[in-house]
């Protein structure tokens, strides 16, 4: 399953809600203000753990638009919109945490 999160964890707790219920095979894609959580100093330990397993992605255009490209944690994978489409195709049902 693919989970998209579009809010910064400083604004809403949707990322934490997602992390609390996510199963072992699902992945997270951070989009819009959700990419703020991809910055090193905003990383939650649960998100960092998922990232080490290669299960966290962030939308590159949104990362660049917010000026945090140099701060994104190393093991968070950046994808473009085509990569977003691939994640939707590959991981089945998409859950949008809004």
């Amino acid at each position, binding site marked *: 399953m693919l989970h998209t999160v*579009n809010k910064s964890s400083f604004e809403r707790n949707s990322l934490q809600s997602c992390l609390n219920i996510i199963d072992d095979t699902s992945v997270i894609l951070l989009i*819009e203000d959700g990419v703020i959580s991809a910055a090193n100093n905003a990383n939650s330990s649960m998100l960092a753990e998922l990232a080490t397993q290669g299960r966290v992605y962030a*939308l590159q255009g949104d990362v660049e638009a917010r000026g945090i490209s140099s701060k994104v944690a190393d093991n968070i994978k950046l994808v473009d*919109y*085509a990569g*977003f489409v691939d994640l939707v195709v590959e991981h089945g049902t*998409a859950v949008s945490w*809004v």
Partner: protein
Amino acid sequence: MKISIQINEGPYQHQASDTAYQFAKAAIDKGHEIFRVFFYHDGVNNASRFTLPPQDDRNVVNQWAELGIKNADGEPELVVCIAAALRRGMLDESEASKNGIDGNNIHPAFRISGLGQLIEAGIQSDRLVVFGD
């Protein structure tokens, strides 16, 4: 793969419609079919043909229209929720005349219909992706 999209927010105020548009464009470029885009809640404002952004800004409504998402019968598959639309003053020709109102503002690339269209999109498509705020 058949993909449908639900959009819950209007243009310019939230990023949802922009993200959804970029996603739809990328999906089409990759050879997927966008079965339907369903505009719900404030998302109905993406269908106003009176939208006039400054010249140096994108026109969200026209961008959607230019994707030309249609079914085999040539009907638009940019579908606006009727209940959400009417209460926000978004009317097509038929709803305007039915309610005795002298104007309509739904862009011709969109059509008004009911919530059943969202359920059907969920059933008929391989994937349904929601964009909101």
